[in-house]
């Protein structure tokens, strides 16, 4: 896969002296879904704002499909669609009116068929003549997506797309993102909802205090950093962990009805056979065995704490 967005040594210092991005370099690959994951104030929105042209660069260089975002801003921006975090829309304008404005701003001739298809896809066609102020929050979010897609961009930025969005719409949006990917669109989303990155992203870039901590394939990341936990449901509850199990690091929980054993997926020897062997040797009966994998959230908290 080739890089579609290249960011080199990007630094952003705001007028008030705040350093939002520190010498940040990262590449987004053509056709991928990448999640920029980080706490509030990590620099996610600053990064997106610079690529999309909302904010100026203090130092460094960004290219979009080979076009410098400052020197060739027309070519670069024509390829990009942006869905902002806030529901910023003209309340008195109609859905059709505002989507037509977006398409025109991005230099595209009016195309009723395309816009109709887009609005239908986002369940907005029925509302095309409604003033935006009459729409629900979820509908407004859809309008913002329609505006961002009005010129059929090759790269779509979603800034916190599902913040304050109900479950149905969230599912719809995730499906849409997958569909867009299938059509060849590169999707870059910021989120602090870990499950969002976990659910739809191919790669995850963890960003904190204006720096990229790591960029990794989602599964590799989970494997590399993930801890697994073996949980053993006991037939009869225990008062304390027998010596043979305690020496392996097994703990007793749930009022003595469950044993738990943590192991690292990165190491070759999980230690599971030893635990099961010890159970047999101690003559402990169990009704169920299952494992739990640490979520990106756990990984993330660990990563940020490490720095």
């Amino acid at each position: 896969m080739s890089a579609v967005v290249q960011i080199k040594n990007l630094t952003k210092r705001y007028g008030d002296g705040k350093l939002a991005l520190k010498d940040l370099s990262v590449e987004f690959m053509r056709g991928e879904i990448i999640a920029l994951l980080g706490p509030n104030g990590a620099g996610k929105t600053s990064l997106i704002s610079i690529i999309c042209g909302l904010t100026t660069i203090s130092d460094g260089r960004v290219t979009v499909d080979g076009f410098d975002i400052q020197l060739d801003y027309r070519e670069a921006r024509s390829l990009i669609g942006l869905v902002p975090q806030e529901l910023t829309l003209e309340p008195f304008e109609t859905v059709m009116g505002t989507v037509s404005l977006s398409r025109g701003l991005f230099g595209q001739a009016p195309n009723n068929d395309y816009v109709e298809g887009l609005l239908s896809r986002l369940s907005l066609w029925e509302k095309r003549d409604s003033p935006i102020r009459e729409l629900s929050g979820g509908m407004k979010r859809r309008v913002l997506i329609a505006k961002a897609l009005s010129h059929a961009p090759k790269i779509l930025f979603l800034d916190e797309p599902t913040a304050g969005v109900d479950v149905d719409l969230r599912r719809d949006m995730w499906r849409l993102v997958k569909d867009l990917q299938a059509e060849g669109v590169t999707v870059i989303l910021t989120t602090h909802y870990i499950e969002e990155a976990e659910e739809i992203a191919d790669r995850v870039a963890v960003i904190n205090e204006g720096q990229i901590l790591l960029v990794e394939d989602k599964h590799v990341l989970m494997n590399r950093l993930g801890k697994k936990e073996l949980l053993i449901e006991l037939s009869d509850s225990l008062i304390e962990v027998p010596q043979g199990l305690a020496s392996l690091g097994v703990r007793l929980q749930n009022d003595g009805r469950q044993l738990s054993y943590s192991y690292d997926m990165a190491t070759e020897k999980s230690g599971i056979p030893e635990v099961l062997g010890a159970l047999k040797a101690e003559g402990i009966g169990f009704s169920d065995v299952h494992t739990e994998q640490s979520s990106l959230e756990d990984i993330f908290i660990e990563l940020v704490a490490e720095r």
Partner: protein
Amino acid sequence: MINFYAIKAIYRFEMSRTYRTPLQSFASPVISTVLYFVVFGSAIGNRMTPIDGISYGAFIVPGLIMLTVMTQSVANASFGIYFPKFLGTIYEHLSAPISSFEMVIGYVGAAATKSAGVGCIILAVSFLFVPLEIEHPLLMIGFLFATALCFSLLGFILGLWAKDFEQLNVVPTLIITPLVFLGGSFYSIDMLPSLWQTVSLFNPAMYVISGFRWAFFGVSDVSIAISLLSLAIFAMIFFAIIWRIFATGYRLRQ
């Protein structure tokens, strides 16, 4: 390469705002002008001696049109660009492949169209109140649109600069309206004591109103050439300021 679709899109979007609010856009300037005609033209005007051989009712027509066109241009253009800033929808313009020049054409063009349109309506209405003969109709129309454009540029600067609605309103109220009123909308500068005549020469609005009146009646406070020149100079100054604002990203891009 010019992004014509973007200019057209901005222009149409701004014009649609006008059609959504016909009362605010057209009715209110027309009604206030009619009130001026009734008060100054009919009630007071009957007791006024003609100025340069022109009845007072007719004399104030160009002044009234300019008063409205100047204030409406500033109001339309400043609101047009301030409102997206206020709502945050400006993000889209900043992320779009458009130059500052295209943005100015779209916004200023729409604002000027609206105010020039209102000016034409007022002119039509004034025919109902006073007999009028326009000596240089083409120049008059040209001057009307040029003034609308020039003051829309000024309004655009105001809208870019304003941080809140207070600032947006304070400049028209405290600066534009007094300048236009004191620029000879309702009187000839000759009627003032000599000190105030000199002061009036520093009022930019006076040159514009005088030129517009010349297009109507062939008489003016200053020569038409000076009026046209000053209008061109104002437009250039305003354009330079706007260019500077976009180049530095002042209050637009952080």
